[in-house]
C-alpha cells in the first residue's frame, strides 16, 4: 500500500516531465540532443523509482511489494527529491533561454548602436 502511495505521488511528476519534453521537441523548441538526454534521464528516474524497492525486497527474501519497511518519511523525502529535480531542471532550461536572449539582445544593441 505504501509503495503504491510512493508510485502515485511520483509518477505524475515523471510523466509531466516526459510530456513536457516530448511537447517541446514536437514544437521544435528543443534540440534533438536535449530531447534524447531528457528522455534518458527521466526514464532512468522512472525505472529506479519503480524497480529499486521491489528489487531491495526480493534481495532480502521478502515479497516484492511488501512495503512494511517503507516509512511515511521515505515517501515524502523521495517525492520531494523527484519534485526538486523536476523544478531545478525546468529552471535551468529557463535560465539558459533567458541568458541566450540577453546575449542576443546585447549583440543586436551593440551592432545597431554602432550605427552600421
Amino acid at each position, binding site marked *: 500500500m505504501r509503495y503504491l502511495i510512493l508510485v502515485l505521488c511520483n509518477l505524475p511528476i515523471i510523466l509531466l516531465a516526459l510530456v513536457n519534453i516530448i511537447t517541446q521537441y514536437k514544437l521544435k523548441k528543443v534540440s534533438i*540532443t536535449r530531447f534524447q*538526454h531528457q528522455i534518458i534521464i527521466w526514464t532512468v528516474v522512472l525505472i529506479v523509482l519503480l524497480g529499486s524497492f521491489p528489487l531491495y525486497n526480493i534481495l532480502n527474501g521478502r515479497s516484492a511489494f511488501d512495503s512494511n519497511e517503507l516509512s511515511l518519511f521515505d515517501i515524502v523525502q523521495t517525492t520531494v527529491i523527484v519534485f526538486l529535480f523536476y523544478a531545478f531542471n525546468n529552471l535551468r532550461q529557463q535560465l539558459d533561454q533567458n541568458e541566450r536572449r540577453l*546575449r542576443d539582445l*546585447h549583440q*543586436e544593441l*551593440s*551592432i545597431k*548602436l*554602432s550605427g*552600421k
Partner: protein
Amino acid sequence: MPAYNEAQVICSVVKKMAAVMDTSKHYTYEIVIINDGSRDATAQEASKTSATVINHILNSGAGGATLTGLSYARQNNFDIAITMDADGQHAPEDVLEGIKQLSKLNADLLIGSRLINNKGMSKTKVIGNTGLSVVTKLLFGVYVTDSQSGLRAYSRRAIDELDWKSTGYEFCSEMIWRAEQSDLSIAEYPIQAIYTDYSRSKGQNNWNGINIVKRLLKQRLVELFE
C-alpha cells in the same frame, strides 16, 4: 577583432592589417573591432582607424565579443570572416594566408596553429597550449594542435551555423566542439606567434589554463542535461 583594453596597440594593429589587405586585389574587406566594454581609450583609438567599431555595452568576454563579430558578419552577408587577437600577436600576412587556405583546403573552420611550427614560443606556452588541446580532445573528441588560437577563418556556412555558450577563453575549445557537432570541416595551418612585452603581459598564463579546463569540464557535464 575582439578588443579589451587595447588602446596602446589597436591603431598600429589595424593599420598593419589594412596595409597587408590592401596589397591583395582579390578581396574586398572590412576590419571590425568589437570593443568589449574596455575601460581605457580603446574605443577612441579604434575610431581613429578605418575599422568599423562595435562597442559592447557590457563586457562579455572574448567568447561573447567573437560571437558579436560573427553576428555582424552574418547580418552583412560576408563570405569569409577571420578573427584575430587585437594585441598584435598575429602577423597580418597570416590572416591573408588564412583566407587563401580556407578556400584551398575547402574548410569551414580554419585554425591558425602556433604549434605546428612553435619557434619563438616559450616551453611553458607550448606545454600549456598542448595540454589544453589534449583536454579538448578528451572532453569533446576533437584534436587540433592549437585549440586556443585566436586566429581563425570561417566559411559562410560556419558564420551561419556556429554558436556557443562560453563567454570566456574556453570558447576556443567549445567552438571546435560545436563545429564538429554541426558537421563543419575543421582544418589547421601554421602561423607564427609574435610575442612582444605587451602581448606577453596581455596573454594567458597556465593558471588561466586551469580555469579554462575547469569551465570546459563544467560545460561538458552540463551538456549531459541538455
